[in-house]
């Protein structure tokens, strides 16, 4: 608990010290903007935006409620489908989801669904109103391991249904990537923590700083709970396996410090980010916004293969970030303990590898140097280690689940990034996993309880 208090004070400090560059990118809609935008919605029937939303929020319904001035009803319509509506309104890749499917996209001006959702969410959180009450206690007990979006969603939904839920979190703060891994430009820490508190007010018991597997052990949880739900996310950033790697900054830690411990965050003048996914984009963005003069992203494939969303790529280019494509880092050169250059080799693309993308092949004799005083890597994360500990069946290293989100071990369910063998990992997918898993768990508990 002491640790948690320390961390929360760090949040406050970071908020107070926050430099202008890291404020939330999009301003909230004014009441008038929300009225105009919501009135523009055609109110499609069986709307494609709702289909495109992984949690299937009834979007025309919540938008028309904004238009009629029923913000409380609007917020409820959102939260009924997605308990973490405040986070999702900020972090969802709406261009790929609801807004991408908006029929007004044919006129190049889809409804600003994300920002309208945020308008309704900001309202309800500013009112301090709880829209849901837990049902009568069932006496059934569920342990959830990992308090990220999937865990919070599952915990909240089960608590609403009257089950007794304990949520274990390894870190000092709950919220998972929403708290630690989403840059402040997109979601302030306070938003994620407010959702955690909302879930706690539904009766969920939160145990932070608990390393499940060691203490408590899985066995003790299995003995004390009717069902377990694993929402452990992914592991740490893998090794590149190159000389000087110990001088490379981990991208996830870089982002975490920018959110929670900015005073101790060092930003280089000439920063190189290895990787070209959404996390790499975020690292490059905060480096630029926090004062780096030059930021270059280095990626061993071409822009056709990069995993960042197209809108994120566009965004980071406008931030003034440069790119080295088809470049493979081979060594970090260090002088007197300080990074000087990143040595790379040019690559060409060959046959498709196991990921389905063309495999990079080094071109002999093409070594070149990129000057840098800070190198950050954001090249994905290790697969969940708990899977092997528990001997769970896996798919490509991810936990394998059936259509009810149950793992190969009866009574242990899983969801979120740790099961995302296919498709892009995202907060909203995790929320949907948590919701659907909660329904399946509820059925199990009702039928077998």
């Amino acid at each position, binding site marked *: 608990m002491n640790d948690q208090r320390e961390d929360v004070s760090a949040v406050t400090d970071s908020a107070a010290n926050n430099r202008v560059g890291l404020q939330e990118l999009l301003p909230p809609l004014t009441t008038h903007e929300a009225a105009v935008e919501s*009135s523009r919605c055609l109110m*499609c*029937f*069986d*709307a494609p*935006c709702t*289909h*495109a939303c992984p949690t299937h929020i009834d979007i025309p319904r919540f938008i028309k409620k904004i238009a009629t001035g029923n913000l409380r009803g609007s917020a409820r319509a959102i939260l009924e489908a997605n308990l973490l509506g405040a986070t999702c309104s900020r972090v969802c890749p709406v261009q790929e989801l609801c807004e991408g*499917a908006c029929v007004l996209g044919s006129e190049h001006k889809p409804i600003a669904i994300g920002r309208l959702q945020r308008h309704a969410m900001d309202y309800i959180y500013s009112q301090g109103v709880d829209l849901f009450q837990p049902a009568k206690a069932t006496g059934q007990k569920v342990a959830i391991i990992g308090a990220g979006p999937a865990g919070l969603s599952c915990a909240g939904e089960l608590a609403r249904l009257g089950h007794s839920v304990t949520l274990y979190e390894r870190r000092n703060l709950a919220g998972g990537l929403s708290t630690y891994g989403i840059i402040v430009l997109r979601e302030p820490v306070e938003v994620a923590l407010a959702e955690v508190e909302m879930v706690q007010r539904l009766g969920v018991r939160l145990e932070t700083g608990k390393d499940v597997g060691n203490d408590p052990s899985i066995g003790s949880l299995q003995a004390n709970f009717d069902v377990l739900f694993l929402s452990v996310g992914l592991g740490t950033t893998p090794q590149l396996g190159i000389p000087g790697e110990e001088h490379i900054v981990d991208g996830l830690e870089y982002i975490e410090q920018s959110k929670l411990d900015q005073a101790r965050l060092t930003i280089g003048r000439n920063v190189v980010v290895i990787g070209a996914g959404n996390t790499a984009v975020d690292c490059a963005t905060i480096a630029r916004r926090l004062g780096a003069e030059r930021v270059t992203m280095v990626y061993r494939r071409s822009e056709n293969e990069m995993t960042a969303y197209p809108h994120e790529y566009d965004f980071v280019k406008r931030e003034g970030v440069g790119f080295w494509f088809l470049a493979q880092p081979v060594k970090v050169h260090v002088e007197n303990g300080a990074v000087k250059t990143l040595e790379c080799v040019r690559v060409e693309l060959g046959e498709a590898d196991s990921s389905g993308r063309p495999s990079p092949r080094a071109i002999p004799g093409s070594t070149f140097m990129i000057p840098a005083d800070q190198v950050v890597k954001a090249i994905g994360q290790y697969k969940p280690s708990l899977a092997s500990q528990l001997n769970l069946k896996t798919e490509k290293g991810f936990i394998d689940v059936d259509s009810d989100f149950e793992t190969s071990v009866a009574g242990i369910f899983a969801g979120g990034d740790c099961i995302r063998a296919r498709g892009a990992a995202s907060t909203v997918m995790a929320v*949907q996993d948590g919701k659907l898993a909660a329904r399946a768990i509820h059925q199990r508990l009702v039928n077998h309880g």
Partner: protein
Amino acid sequence: MADLRINFAGIRSPNPFWLASAPPTNSGAQVHRAFEAGWGGAVWKTIGAPVLNVSNRYGAWHYGNQKMLAINNVELISDRPIDVNLQEIAEVKRAWPDRAVVVSAMVESKPEAWHDVIRRIQDTGADGIELNYGCPHGMSERGMGSAVGQVPEYCEQITGWVMEVAKIPVIVKLTPNISDIVMPARAAVAARANALSLINTVNSIIGVDLDTLEITPNIGGRGGHGGYAGPAVKPIALNMLAALGRDSIVAGSKLPISGMGGISTWRDAAEFLLLGASGLQVCTAVMHYGFRIVEDLCDGLSNWMDEKGFATIPDVVGRSLDRVSDFKDFDLAFKAIARIDQQKCIRCDLCYVACNDTAHQCIDLVDRHGNIIRPGAYDARSNGKADAVGTRPSVVVREEDCVGCRLCYNVCPVEDCIAMVELPSGRPSVTWDELSQKQREVTEDWDKMLQYREKMGIQIH
């Protein structure tokens, strides 16, 4: 360039657009500026009996993002001293000899009061007089305005008093707050008025404040009915205008009609002309956007007339009147069905829900394989732009079941996406009137009607 000049009951103006008697014509300074902007004429804000006005006198009806789809007011006639008004009218007319300056009047229902005000107006050099029998609020409580306009006998009597002394054209302005607009118009004809104008404002309450539970707008804790005007009333005005044009007595009198009620654009103006107005008046649109709108009113009307080959305003006036018909004279064999242009359709499915829930259930959702599917028929785990757009069904009209009601056409947000296509019905043309004369039993007995339908191949699912 079309000739936009009009000669309305002897009152000439360079274009048909006059400001209606209302706040925009409250003072000489305003009318000067309006004429500078290009208005062809102005009907001065009603002068007459002494009054006092209140604050919060204008309410408005907003819908969606459209502000002021209509305005509602409890403003009375001019609250400026009558002598000041008369002096400014004289000055304006002297400065603008080519524009129409008409003065609206409303006084107590006594012959001497009307004789006096008519003579004083004539002394200004004004081109005409409009008798305000229309205001539904305030003045009507004192036996004026719509209290006169709602009783044809009063209309005729007072107009008669006016005509005893009038030397310039007299226009009788009608209130729409009456069951049959033809009656007061006939009264004006009987009293030998020179022209008619319509409509005055529609009686209305704008709304209730959901915080305070007071009437909107709030006038010291109270509120009440007022006159409703603006784009929302246009269809009501068009119907009343056409009713006069189709009445044998009113039309037979050949009195010109100054049309008003929601004219905001040249398109509205053209419609009023086509239904028989030979002059036009505008108020709410000016109160929303200012005098400048007259430029496009003239420009748009002129371009449209050029395109259509109309050289003068009289060429346009009343051109669509003979198309106005009663239901009994419609061709019952006429058949149209809705057809959706799949290339233009954006798949909002508004036509589907409107047809399915509230009309005749003849639009289907059809998937890529041609199967009819139910709404929301996708897996809960399906998501994303590609899934949502790629698997979105088409909306397809089942033409054999379509009754051609035109609801889908009306709700479709895409220009020219749904067309009402005229198809041969294969039946001989017949009107209800003809049917009830030739086969009366069919129009009075359901069994006979069913036999008739079967014979004619009329199937209603």
